[in-house]
């Protein structure tokens, strides 16, 4: 059985600021990041849909100690966002001073753009991730 939506296609769409997910024909739940079966009912019978990419920050951190090869990126803020469509997704917070990240971020509404990790010698190529920004 083939995947409806694989990482490469998800990542290519994200590079166009389109967040793709899968909507279950059996239970209606939305799954993203994509996988073989529905996150709620494990049915593989799902259709590709475009999500809004909007949501609210549920948690965050500002990273000061980087992995090898990413030293130039610190400090940066990672957020876990609860999408309006249901799933949680990980991304970065842009247009924001990482040193100012505090509990006040929790619950704040965000919209989505993207940023590409160019990859390193272990990553089998590049990968895009959401780059969120606060909605005023």
């Amino acid at each position, binding site marked *: 059985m083939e995947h409806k939506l694989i*990482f490469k296609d998800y*990542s290519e769409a994200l590079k166009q600021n389109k967040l793709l997910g899968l909507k279950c024909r059996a239970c209606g739940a939305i799954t993203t*990041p994509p*996988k073989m079966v529905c*996150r709620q009912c494990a049915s593989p019978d799902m259709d590709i849909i475009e999500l809004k990419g909007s949501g609210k920050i*549920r*948690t*965050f*951190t*500002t*990273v*000061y*100690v*980087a*992995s*090898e*090869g*990413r*030293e130039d*990126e610190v400090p*940066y803020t*990672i957020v*876990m966002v*609860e999408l309006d469509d249901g*799933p*949680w*997704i*990980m*991304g*970065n917070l842009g247009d924001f001073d990482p040193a100012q*990240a505090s*509990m006040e971020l*929790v619950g704040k509404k965000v919209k989505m753009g993207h*940023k*590409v*990790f160019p990859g*390193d010698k*272990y*990553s089998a190529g590049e*990968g*895009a*991730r*959401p780059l969120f920004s606060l909605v005023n």
Partner: protein
Amino acid sequence: MKKVAVVGVGETNFSGPQDKTEVELFAEAAMEAITESNLKPEDIKALFIGNVLGDFSEGQGMVQAFAAENIGCHHVPANKYEGACASASMAIRDAFIWVASGFYDIVLAGGVERAATMGTGLATRTFAMFSDARYEYPSGITFPAVFAMLTHLYADTYGIPLEKLREQMAKVSIQSYRHGSVNPRAQFFGKNADMTVEKVLGSFMVSSPLTLHDCCPFSDGAAAVVLASEEVAKKLTGKPVYITGVGQSSSGPLCNQSDYLPRIRAREISSRRAYDMAGVTPQDIDLCELHDCFSIASLIAAESLGFFEFGKAGEAWEKGEADIGGRVAINPSGGLKSKGHPIGATGAGQVYEVTRQLRGEVEPERQVEGARTGLTDTLGGDGGTLVNIILQRGW
């Protein structure tokens, strides 16, 4: 199913960068365990080793075969387990299952790692490989970042002001440092017994709000245990420690665990299986070596294991309920924070500690008096692998 006993345990010092190879480190722990069991290497029927990053740390794959040959366990089946930080616990659980089944009567299980040898940059990169590589690593996730995000989520979920939570977390680190300071095998033996809340909060920020003293170190080290069937165990030792319950569970990427976070669902399933199998409850546990890779991880673990109410573990630490002499003695070894965290060996180090505690053999300052039942808790990745093992005195 046969009863299975731990009949011997061995461990190297857990430490910063070592000059010894992984094969050398594992062999030292293994021979200590075999010798203590009154056995010879030729008595071992199979060898199960946890090892995670030997390829990155010293260019050595398939360490299990070389380790078996090095200690004279010639031509035995030798398996490697990789479940990130829970690897050795997976190895011991599988060894338990094989001995319980009757297929083998004596199995050596353990683990080895040289995480400190890799240095912070490569260790941080490779530890991040236990998060989702496609959907989460591009955001720059690191291990401290996972638990830093769980800290903020914990504060929000339970309505605890972050500053208060950070003080409670500091007290977790302080307790672990105190225990490890009197454990001669610990990475911080003789160190940090005078740690204060101010020093923890004032050390440098790794991933907000976690400072250096909220985080366990990178460590090198090895640990090993010999498991034997009840019939064999009774011939070898008057103090068999029985494995009476085991549990293991898995989860997917961190974001996909959102229905439960900051609770780790895999831990609740794994520990429930172990408790049910042993026929005990959290109230029966005298001591627990749990997976305190970060100070917040101790609070999350102790709650999911059933020791304290959700959102209340920090208060329990403040009141001494998680200390030796309290309701349950948590990490009398010093835990990952102070004893150290050579990831492929950590779970075997926990079984080493619990076994010696039940035998009454550790340093008096950190001995849990009269301990009869102990629990280990090992977490791999960000909840991807969870293993729990219950050990009980057999005399």
